[in-house]
């Protein structure tokens, strides 16, 4: 495939060259700064998600990479070539939009073949490539239908086949799944991921759906207000959110206001907890963050650290588990959300109003400087 010089195969595995490097990228629309000094490297064959709430700049960044809305400042390099100022037609990428933008008057076959024409490829070769692509995306028998005759999921696949047809070095996906039903979405998530793995094409996907990002990405780029908050593997992002925003945006998180009272000690309300508070000065206000599923609820005290007595205020049934609000004297006005497995609830016969002990493992507690985010 053209444009995919493989940096990984020449023995420099340890210090891979980035396939796509973005440096000091800013984009402003009038007075509004949509992207601010963004820097990012994407490696060959990687699946990277841009994740963030709407208006965070993730689509703007994707469109800058595509050359559709060129950045105000900063540079983009793809496969060693500076593409910062190039129009889309001179870059090397395929793109799938949220609307798919399939040409409505052209059959599926002609849609897919669209990018293969005018390239001095023999007609038979084009035909073969189209069949191959349609087989790859699982639509071998639909090639003479028009887009409007296909389901949303099928249209999505056609768009994918069309984008992949000229074998681009980079595949850009702009919220490709958000127009689909929940079930189709889950199925296509796997299909796109396995297709990407088979083809090995470097892929960037924009999404606001954290589940999508967590299941599909090799790495996630979490963005907010035009800046990158954190870049990391799904596990890193989930387990070790770098900022309160990331912690809040990905998964569910309890945020409690607290004060550092000693080395490895933090207090909130009238409760003191052991935690890893390295490098935070004593007496400093912090936000204590802990995920509901990390809170262990038990009936007795088994001698662990960070046990706090509490009462189950209310329980919400969520199918595979219960989410309980824990209240207690020590918590004062705050509540602690804890996820209780069905098993646990059955075994301990937990119910609203029961008194229990909640254990917060010290390794699961994260501290963030007190700021506007969180809670």
């Amino acid at each position, binding site marked *: 495939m053209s444009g995919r010089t493989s940096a990984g195969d020449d023995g420099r595995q340890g210090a891979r060259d980035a396939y796509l490097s973005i440096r000091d990228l800013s984009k402003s629309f009038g007075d509004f700064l949509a992207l601010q000094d963004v820097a990012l490297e994407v490696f060959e064959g990687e699946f990277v998600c841009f994740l963030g709430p709407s208006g965070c700049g993730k689509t703007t960044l994707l469109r800058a990479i*595509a050359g559709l809305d060129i950045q105000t400042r900063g*540079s983009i390099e793809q496969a060693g070539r500076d593409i910062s100022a190039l129009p889309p037609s001179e870059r090397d990428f395929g793109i799938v939009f949220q609307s798919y933008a399939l040409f409505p008057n052209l059959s599926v076959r002609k849609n897919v073949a669209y990018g293969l024409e*005018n390239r001095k490829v023999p007609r038979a070769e084009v035909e073969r490539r189209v069949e191959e692509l349609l087989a790859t995306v699982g639509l071998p028998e639909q090639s003479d239908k028009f887009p409007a005759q296909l389901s949303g999921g099928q249209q999505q696949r056609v768009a994918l086949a069309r*984008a992949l047809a000229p074998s681009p070095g980079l595949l850009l996906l702009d919220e490709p799944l958000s127009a689909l039903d929940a079930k189709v979405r889950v199925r296509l998530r796997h299909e796109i991921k396995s297709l990407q793995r088979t083809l090995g094409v470097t892929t960037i996907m924009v999404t606001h759906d954290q589940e999508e990002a967590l299941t599909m990405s090799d790495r996630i780029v979490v963005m907010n207000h035009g800046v990158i908050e954190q870049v990391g593997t799904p596990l890193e992002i989930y387990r070790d959110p770098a900022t309160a925003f990331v912690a809040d945006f990905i998964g569910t998180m309890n945020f409690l206001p607290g004060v550092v009272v000693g080395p490895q000690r933090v207090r909130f309300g009238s409760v003191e907890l052991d935690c890893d508070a390295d490098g935070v000065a004593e007496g400093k206000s912090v936000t204590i963050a802990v995920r509901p599923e990390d809170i262990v609820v038990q009936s007795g005290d088994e001698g662990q650290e960070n046990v706090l007595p509490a009462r189950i205020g209310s329980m919400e049934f969520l199918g595979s588990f219960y989410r309980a609000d824990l209240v207690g004297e020590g918590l004062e006005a705050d509540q602690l959300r804890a996820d209780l497995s069905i098993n646990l609830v059955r075994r301990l016969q937990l119910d609203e109003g029961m008194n229990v002990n909640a254990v917060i493992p010290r390794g699961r507690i994260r501290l963030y400087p007190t700021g506007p985010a969180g809670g």
Partner: protein
Amino acid sequence: MASGVAEAGSAAPRVRPKISRDDWLMRAFMGVIGLYLLVTLAFPLYAMFAKSLDSYRFDLANIELQVDKGEGWGESLSALELAGPVEAIDTEDLTARSGERIAPTDFFPDFSFRSETRYRLRNIEPSRGGFLVGGKVVTETDWVELSSNEFRRVLIRPEPGRGLGNYIEYFSTPALFHSIYNSLIIAGITTVITVTLAFAFAYALTRSCMAFKGLFKTIAMVPILVPSLLPGIALVYLFGNQGMIKELLFGHSIYGPIGIVIASVFFTFPHALIIILTALSISDARLYEAATALRAPKTRIFWTVTLPGARYGLISAAFVVFNLVITDFGVPKVIGGQFDVLSLDIYKQVIGQQNFEMGAVVSVVLLIPALAAFSVDRAVQKKQVALLSSRAVPYQPSPSWRLDTAMFGYCCLVGLFILGLLGVCQFAALIKFWPYDLSFSLANYNFDVMDGGGWSSFTNSIQLGLYTAFIGTCVIFVGGYLVEKGRGFLVGRGAFQLLAMMPMAIPGMVLGLAYIFFFNDPDNPLSFLYGTMAILVICTITHFYTVSHLTGVTALKQMDPEFESVSASLKQPVTKVFLRVTVPVCLPAIFDIWIYLFVNAMTTVSAVVFLYSPDTSLASIAVLNMDDAGDIAPAAAMGMMIFYVNASMRLAHAAITARLQGRTQAWRVR
């Protein structure tokens, strides 16, 4: 893992996007079409404004004369001093028209060209006006000596200048500025009547379950297919001096305001109906359900749901009708009698009196209400779009015997009015001589023996229609595409859009007159176009640019904005996505533009009336000229010919569109 937020405030240099070949191509095309609009719209209008400020004045104080009655040259006197006692010349007011002249022989009551007296005269200061000696212009200060025989061929020319002189003259001539009042009154009355009638008609079509809705809608559109002269002619037959049913007017004359209003209602009705129909059909059924659930009585629902929902449509329709009436020229020409209106004044000043400066002044005056109506309409149209919610549920009327019967009756009356006027014209065209000889005859179709250009004017019209439709559709649709889908270049696209919107605000008479000033100027390298078919095509395309442009842009707005992005990412030129996707998908809109241009080219009178030459006379102009010459029946016959061509084109258009939906637009069906 390299990533994260870089140091804030790092000032990398601004990126200057490279402009792709596609972008250059699109800009080049936009430049060409923009230039076209500048040359065919902005420049002529400028020339007209300039003309309206051209004023002429006799500078008699600058010319001195001496007389030699055989005793040597006498006392040197200025022309002003000599003209003082002459009654024919008002020395208080020496403003003049460009073509006006003063003969200095008038200064000498005892002048005889046989006498031996010698005269000499000169300009005191070098002058731009000067005087003519037998066709030769003298502007220098040297004495010119002449015998009395030569002296009688001397004419003093007025001095050209710039100023508001023409405007002052206009507003101090009651006969002229009274037309403003007349125009406003007529336009106002017509607007109220047309909008009321059209609203009721649209209400019947959208809110009742009466039968033959499709037929009524078709009939209501018929007036678009005929020149506005035709209803006037029909009214002459019905209520004129020998009218069929003139008793119904109880002694009032149809020639004047009554006739103008009735004929204007006829030709503006479909325009108002289209707008109000759109406004009524987008209203939301859920509002009616809510109102019914709250037990609001029917009348209350009408006043609180139906009417407010259509208010922008009503306002918009009112301004469109107002604009159409105040700028129309056909109706008052045929049936206005002695009742002067602005558009007719332009015609009379230019064609009748050859007073181009005053024609330009009236044009500028006429521009004011037209521009005002246009701007209000644009502002209102924007709001109407905002009213549309994508989640609205279309309203389905439920049958009601009383409402349906009443509405059916009403629509029959309107249909009778429209088809009746048309029928009268057809009847008039086919009989020998109303009211004396009612036998059938095709003599009225023998156009070649009448004033007006004969059958060739009819073929000219069809030529004009086809050229205008084909060239105009290409130019206008491509222009709309460039505005809508261009990348970057915001200032250029904004300016282009503004230019494209302008023609709607410019009355046809004004445009035509502006073309005279611009294209008939010998210094203009484009003056070779004057008097050709080309200038008629250009003028007609420009005249009807805006509505066509809006039709195209509306269709283009419904296209996914990412088609061009996808195509570029697949390394295909923009021409490919335009020809393979945009044009096929927009074909229905493209055909709509085509038929709109064709029909209007067939019926238009106002702009082209100043621009046709004997070789390029048009059918609509022939109607005008034959009516002017008293050949009313042949005028009606020619008007009906226009109707037949337009109606068959309309039918063909409907058939082709239907076929298109079936074949190339197969993708629309699931």
